[in-house]
């Protein structure tokens, strides 16, 4: 699989005319008064690009994803998402930025009192769309990720792999411009992992920028894409 757009420069196929989807400049991040968990992080994610984020456990992958997701603010440096500098961003602008992102959490974060169908439909529902207007999309995506027979089931009754697929479907359903995935294949067998990865690549071909945090080198080897490697609180870009 080749998911590259122009991975060497991080620019899109439009020759760098597009604004980066994400831009970090000398970003540092600490929790409270503790030491910095991320230091001097600088990178860009170009439109339509595909990249992996890797590094040992505790290296700060999840923190980096949370910074992009705007659920935490950097201690220093500049973070810009979809061209908007996020310090002092209004809650309305924050919501509209988040609607352009899809996220797969490592712990899935499905709502236990909603059916699989309702969980996957959630990003469309919060946009105020009528249920009939998105029913087909949700059903088709659920069938594609192999949950067609499980759409009426509540998450506590799903297996780990099924939860993973439901979480991925929820992240994809609104066709986000940027997909963030934290260990999205961690709970599925290699075959399904490859299938899900193919889904991410197809989504990328349709124009979505993708950032996948993973430990799985075998998975990364399947796609010729840039790798952001975190270690010693710093980021190194490979490829």
């Amino acid at each position, binding site marked *: 699989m080749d998911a590259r757009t122009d991975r060497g420069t991080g620019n899109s196929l439009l020759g760098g005319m597009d604004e980066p989807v994400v831009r970090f400049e000398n970003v540092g991040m600490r929790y409270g008064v503790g030491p910095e968990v991320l230091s001097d992080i600088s990178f860009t994610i170009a439109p339509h690009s595909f990249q992996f984020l890797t590094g040992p456990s505790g290296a700060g992958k999840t923190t980096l994803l949370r910074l992009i*997701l705007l*659920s935490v603010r950097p201690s220093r440096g500049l973070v810009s998402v979809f061209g908007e500098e996020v310090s002092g961003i209004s*809650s*309305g602008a924050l*919501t509209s930025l*988040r*609607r352009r992102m899809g*996220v797969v959490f490592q712990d899935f*974060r499905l*709502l236990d*009192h*909603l*059916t699989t*169908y*309702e969980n996957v*439909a*959630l*990003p469309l*529902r*919060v*946009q*105020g769309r009528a*249920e*009939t*207007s998105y*029913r*087909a*999309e949700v*059903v*088709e*995506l659920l069938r*594609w990720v192999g949950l067609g027979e499980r*759409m*009426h089931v509540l998450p506590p009754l799903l297996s780990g792999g099924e939860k993973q697929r439901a979480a991925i479907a*929820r992240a*994809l359903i*609104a*066709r986000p411009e940027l997909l963030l995935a934290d260990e999205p294949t961690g709970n599925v067998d290699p075959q399904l992992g490859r299938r899900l990865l*193919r*889904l991410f*690549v*197809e*989504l990328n*071909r*349709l124009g979505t920028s993708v950032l996948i945090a993973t430990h799985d080198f075998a998975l990364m080897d399947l796609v010729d894409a840039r790798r952001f490697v975190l270690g010693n609180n710093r980021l190194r870009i490979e490829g």
Partner: protein
Amino acid sequence: MSDGATLARGKRREAPAADLPPTLRRNAPLVPTDTSAGRALAAVIAILTFLAALCAGGAEIVATSAAQWQGSVAQEVTIQVRPSPGRDTDADVAKAAALASATPGIAATRPFTKAESERLLEPWLGTGLDLGDLPVPRLITVRLGSGTPDLGDLRRRLAESLPGVASLDDHALWLSRLSTMANTVVGVGVAIVGLVLVATGLAVTFATRGAMAGNREVVEVLHFVGADADFIAREFQRRFFRLGLRGGAIGAAAALAVIGAGGALARVWRAGPAGDEIEALFGGFAIGWRGYASVVLIGVIASVVTAVVSRLTVRRFLD
């Protein structure tokens, strides 16, 4: 099937409903409703609504009874004729009654005989006493007609014709005290209803904070999937409005049942030996359409207070 085709096609086509299992739940509330905390809050709202509705019903009964008393008392005035040495009291009574009857707007006069006047004292002095030597005042009840008789003129003519002997009592002092008492009871009732609604608001505030804390993950996920604070506040408001409506309806229905049962008991008791006293105190123990409307309104207000307070609490929490 191509993945891209799957993703692209999903945006265009709407699936017929038959594609989904008929039992599939598709639009459940985003904030869990049927929790023990939710049921407890509904119970608290039901109890508070019940108490507020009873207060309102009680105030309404007092106000209605007071209005009835005032109406019946205001329809009558009394002329008192005092016996004086050297005067023919019966002649004075007849003269005073004639003066009253001649006044326009007076429907009827009824002089009390000496025996009747003495009988009025029996509750205080007991029976079997010879009151013949006592100067017992004589009373004339004057029933007012539909017009508005000039009582000032009647009072003046009584003073001119029977100076120091006859006086007119239009019960103004008693009516004023009755009115003050009724207004006080109604005011206390309204204050209690207000306090109960404030207590409802406070209970909902704490319950909402608890619900927000208990649903922190739900709120976080809703944020991440692109819900704005207004959407989340609306979801909580909808949940609490339902709880408030349930509690308010139960409380109001219980209050109506108690008032209805009270009315039925009052009807039974009225047939008994203490019936007159009960009727004098509570009238018909009926709250009328205005009372029923107040009770229902309190139930609705409790629900609306619940919804508004929960929304404000969520907005403050999220901001």
